[in-house]
């Protein structure tokens, strides 16, 4: 019973916050609704027993990706009137895409009701290994069967990082000058301070 309540709670919230993400006028609100949608999506994952994926979703998407989204959106100065003007112009296109997606959805539901699919169990390798948590299952798959894809995906991320640096990094020196931390730490008080006993009226020679 409690699972059913939780499911309907999460599902309703996912849908509602998904809709609000789109219709919210303020882009910051949109991002926040999106975060709520992620959060409830993670809740749904928990309900189907994928706790590892649920927490990864929160850590990666809510904890890092969405924060950066929010960062960017907050710093943008968005002209809402202009956005709405574009909205009217692109409305027919949007409707067309929405209709296509709706057709897809209907088809998907239809196919689902036509009978259950045996997803990924053709050779039994994707079936959960008995008696292990899904962290261990995912680890075994990622570093076993999908090793090649996993490592290739790593290279994709590396390329994205290299690309971002190549396009934005200017080789200029910092306006504060270069700070050599090791040298600062290695400095001793005796090198930096001098004990003098100035004569009256003589001043100090540095």
């Amino acid at each position, binding site marked *: *019973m*409690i699972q059913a309540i939780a499911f309907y709670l999460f599902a309703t919230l996912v849908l509602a916050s998904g809709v609000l993400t789109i219709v919210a006028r*303020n882009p*910051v*609100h949109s991002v*926040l609704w999106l*975060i709520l949608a992620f959060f409830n999506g*993670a809740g749904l994952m928990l309900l189907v027993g994928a*706790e*590892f994926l649920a*927490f*990864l979703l*929160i*850590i990666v998407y*809510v*904890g*890092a990706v969405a*924060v*950066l989204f*929010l*960062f960017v959106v*907050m*710093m943008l100065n968005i002209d809402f009137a202009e956005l709405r003007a574009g909205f009217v112009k692109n409305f027919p296109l949007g409707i067309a895409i929405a209709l296509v997606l709706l057709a897809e959805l209907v088809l998907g539901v239809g196919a689902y009701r036509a009978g259950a699919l045996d997803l990924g169990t053709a050779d039994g390798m994707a079936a959960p290994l008995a008696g292990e*948590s899904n*962290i261990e299952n995912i680890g075994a798959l990622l570093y076993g069967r999908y090793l090649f894809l996993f490592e290739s995906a790593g290279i994709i991320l590396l390329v994205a990082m290299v690309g971002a640096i190549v396009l934005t990094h200017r080789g200029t020196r*910092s306006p*504060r000058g270069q*700070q050599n*931390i090791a040298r600062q730490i290695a400095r001793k008080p005796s090198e930096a301070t001098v004990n003098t006993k100035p004569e009256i009226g003589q001043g100090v020679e540095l």
Partner: protein
Amino acid sequence: MTQTFMNWGMTHEWAWFTATIAGILLIALPLMLAVAMIIYADRKIWAAMALRRGPNVVGPFGLLQSFADGLKVFLQETIVPSASNKGLFLIAPIITFTVALAAWAVIPFNSGAVLSDINVGLLYILAISSLGVYGVVVSGWASNSKYPFFSAMRAAAQMISYEVSIGFILICVVLWAGTFNMNGIIEAQRGHGFGIVNGFFFNLLLFPMWVMFLISSLAETARAPFDLTEAESELVAGYQTEYSSMSFALFWLGEYANVLLMCALNAILFFGGWLPPLNIDLIPWFDVPGWIWLFAKILFFFFVFSWIKATVPRFRYDQLMRLGWKVFLPLSLAFVVIVSGYLMFTRYG
């Protein structure tokens, strides 16, 4: 606890529900009390290091100072700036506070004494603590004021930066313990040092990770010397500038609850949590309860936090970022490789 309530004639669902509520109250209320006292302790320690007296007027030795402060903010009028985004302005402190409390659900106080003994406890902590940044960012933006906004930007960048290396540090611990479950991690530390000392800190490969974790936890909770989000000389009071009354108090409580959480994590992940420090039965006829050991360790780390706050000058922001991205990230990454390689050869090889 569910069993107890079922013995009182409740159905299983209701007993579970009541037990959970009772468990939450059992953790949250003492935590709030602890936060009040810890604020007092913080001020006292800080004052002692500055050769001052600290709070000493309200109650004996000023013990009731925090309650007087609490009463004061409670009775104040809540001021919402007219140009602010009102809904988000009020939600932000609630997010900070709730998130700070929610993380305690998986903290074990003794063998089995944990509200929710899930097998991905550490991931839960990471997930929840990564949410903490939203309270700060949202409050900074919703205030519609320059200083809070700068502070929010700083806080977001800082927390994300240090979460990355914290994540890698935790992975090292998890690799060694072989589980994400908090109690499992504690049990794995039993007799870790030559069968005598309980705790991962007594491990040549994990000790440097603990040092990094301690520093990162200072940065993650924006405590001195990394308190750039509320650096008073630059940003007035940071993201709390526009807040007053209860909304301000919620930030305050949330922050200190987070500090306590980080102290608890230091104790649990590296110092054996509720295990006694030594794995020797010194007094055969009497066992000190586990939760006392845990509290003692938390208090010790809180003292370390206050000590650092009182003695170390504040970092500059670029130095903070440099430390996070150029020192801790490569180091912790290297240690993930070293630790997993070592375990592969010795344990699984």
